[in-house]
């Protein structure tokens, strides 16, 4: 943009940030005109640090943003080709609808001041008008991608059989109500809210419970209400394999999620500090340990090092360290990851045995390992562990389950009784892509070359 526009921008819309022109060589963080004083210098330093905080928080948000692509790939890869378009659309809508809904209501409920139960103002970023503080913007985008992440967890667990319309109602309900309400209890004070749970000293640095368990328990409710995919279990209830259609997608998705998770965890400082180093180390070690543990567990109990279990293991390690990434040591992170990796394998088998069909293992990865991570954040607390700390952690874990599972179970039941939640067997067999979207993920190349076999 031209210099003209930039200063214009700053003047009109944003608190004077003369630094915007730094590269032009003119002094900027300090008012050029008069000689620097100790006070002006001090203020300038704070301003530069503040710029760094904005930079880090925004970059972290951008990293978390890409996790949507990771979820799309892992979910599409671990399900069948005939439903790939539908999975992608669901993830895209979690993000798109989610962003709009969180802007309209979610953020206000989660971070607005309120009666202690949830926020009641600050909708549509209205606080900017009053405060003129751009921090609101960077904080909002960081929180928005978190909300979208919570929403997208359910998509995998209900894959291959859920009506697209119903799914969108769910997305609006979760990002607009269920997630922000619980969030206000644990994280409200990060902005203008304040919740009873954080008041107790609940430790959930980046959201093992607030984001992942809430999403995971919502997924559990959904999977129970909608029931398993046709043919997923034999008449006498034994599970039948229903292999995903592309494990390369699943692997790529896992790497992208791991990549984004550095922003998810380390970004939760929302400040450019040295704390981010330890957090990133813990995140990486726990994920690595999770992958190894899941692989070994699968190898031992299921004969082969199953790739999908190993992938789940890496994610389990990531979910597991999310709560405690800032208050445990690297050594503890390895233990947390190892446990999560083993746990996720048994959890997947458990839900299979209970005939709860979760094509991608979302319930086990996010729900179960989210709970484990929240507990571990207390158990391995570098500051020492007390019964009080453990107690508070358990309260948070239980409340999250009760809140998310109950509200979503009721919601899904109601929707099922009214609009219906599941597609017809005919559609399920043919695939949701054709019926819901009129698309096919993989064009019948022979039959489309020179559009043969197609009549306009």
């Amino acid at each position, binding site marked *: 943009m031209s210099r003209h526009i930039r200063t214009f921008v700053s003047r009109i819309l944003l608190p004077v940030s003369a630094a915007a022109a730094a590269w032009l060589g003119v002094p900027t963080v300090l008012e050029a005109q008069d000689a620097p004083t100790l006070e002006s210098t001090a203020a300038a330093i704070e301003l530069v640090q503040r710029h760094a905080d904005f930079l880090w928080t925004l970059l972290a948000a951008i990293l978390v943003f890409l996790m949507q692509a990771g979820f799309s790939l892992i979910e599409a890869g671990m399900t069948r080709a005939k439903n790939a378009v539908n999975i992608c659309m669901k993830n895209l809508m979690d993000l798109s609808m989610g962003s709009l809904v969180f802007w309209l209501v979610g953020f206000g409920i989660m971070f607005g001041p309120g009666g202690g139960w949830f926020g009641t103002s600050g909708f549509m970023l209205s606080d900017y008008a009053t405060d003129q503080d751009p921090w609101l913007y960077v904080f909002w985008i960081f929180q928005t991608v978190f909300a979208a992440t919570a929403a997208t967890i359910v998509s995998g667990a209900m894959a291959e059989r859920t009506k697209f319309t119903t799914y969108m109602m769910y997305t609006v309900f979760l990002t607009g109500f269920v997630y922000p309400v619980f969030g206000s209890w644990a994280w409200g004070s990060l902005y203008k809210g304040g919740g009873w749970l954080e008041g107790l000293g609940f430790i959930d640095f980046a959201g093992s419970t607030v984001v992942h368990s809430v999403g995971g328990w919502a997924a559990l409710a959904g999977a129970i209400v909608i029931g398993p995919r046709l043919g997923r279990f034999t008449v006498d209830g034994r599970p039948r394999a229903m292999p995903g259609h592309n494990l390369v997608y699943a692997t790529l998705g896992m790497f992208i999620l791991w990549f984004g998770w550095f922003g998810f965890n380390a970004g939760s400082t929302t400040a450019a500090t040295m704390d981010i180093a330890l957090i990133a180390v813990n995140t990486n070690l726990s994920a690595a340990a999770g992958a190894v543990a899941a692989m070994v567990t699968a190898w031992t109990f299921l004969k082969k090092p199953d790739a999908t279990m190993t992938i789940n293991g890496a994610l389990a390690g990531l979910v597991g360290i999310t709560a405690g990434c800032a208050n445990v040591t690297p050594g503890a992170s390895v233990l947390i990851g190892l446990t999560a990796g083993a746990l996720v394998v048994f959890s997947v088998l458990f839900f299979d045995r209970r005939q709860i069909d979760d094509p991608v293992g979302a319930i086990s990865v996010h729900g179960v390992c989210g709970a484990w991570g929240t507990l571990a954040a207390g158990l391995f607390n570098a500051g020492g562990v007390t019964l009080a700390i453990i107690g508070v952690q358990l309260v948070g874990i239980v409340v999250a389950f009760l809140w998310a599972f109950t509200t979503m179970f009721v919601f899904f039941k109601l929707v099922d009784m009214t609009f219906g939640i599941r597609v017809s067997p005919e559609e399920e067999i043919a695939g949701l892509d054709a019926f819901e979207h*009129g698309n096919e993920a993989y064009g019948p190349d022979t039959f489309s070359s020179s559009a043969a*076999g197609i009549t306009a």
Partner: protein
Amino acid sequence: MKKVEGIIRPHLLESVKTALQDAGVVGMTVTEVKGFGRQKGQPESYRGTEYKVEFLPKLKVEVVVAEAILEDVVSAFLAAAKTGKFGDGKVFVSPLDDVIRIRTEERGESAI
């Protein structure tokens, strides 16, 4: 010896397979095919252009059988592949001169 080819709906393969085994079939060869016929595909649309997929996914199940069990095999197809809706498919029966099992070089019925 006869060759029986059944064009069926893909998702019914499992039950057809079982029915054929019950009729005494030990081996079969399956091919993914596209079928054109009375059944009309779900109208699709791509970027606003509507189109009907006229060639629908089917499976062709080929079985070589001894005359003796021919009728049972045909009935197996009818029993397992029938939904009563357009698109159930067809069974074709054609003559066969000889069969050879590559592994043992046996010929004729014993090679089936």
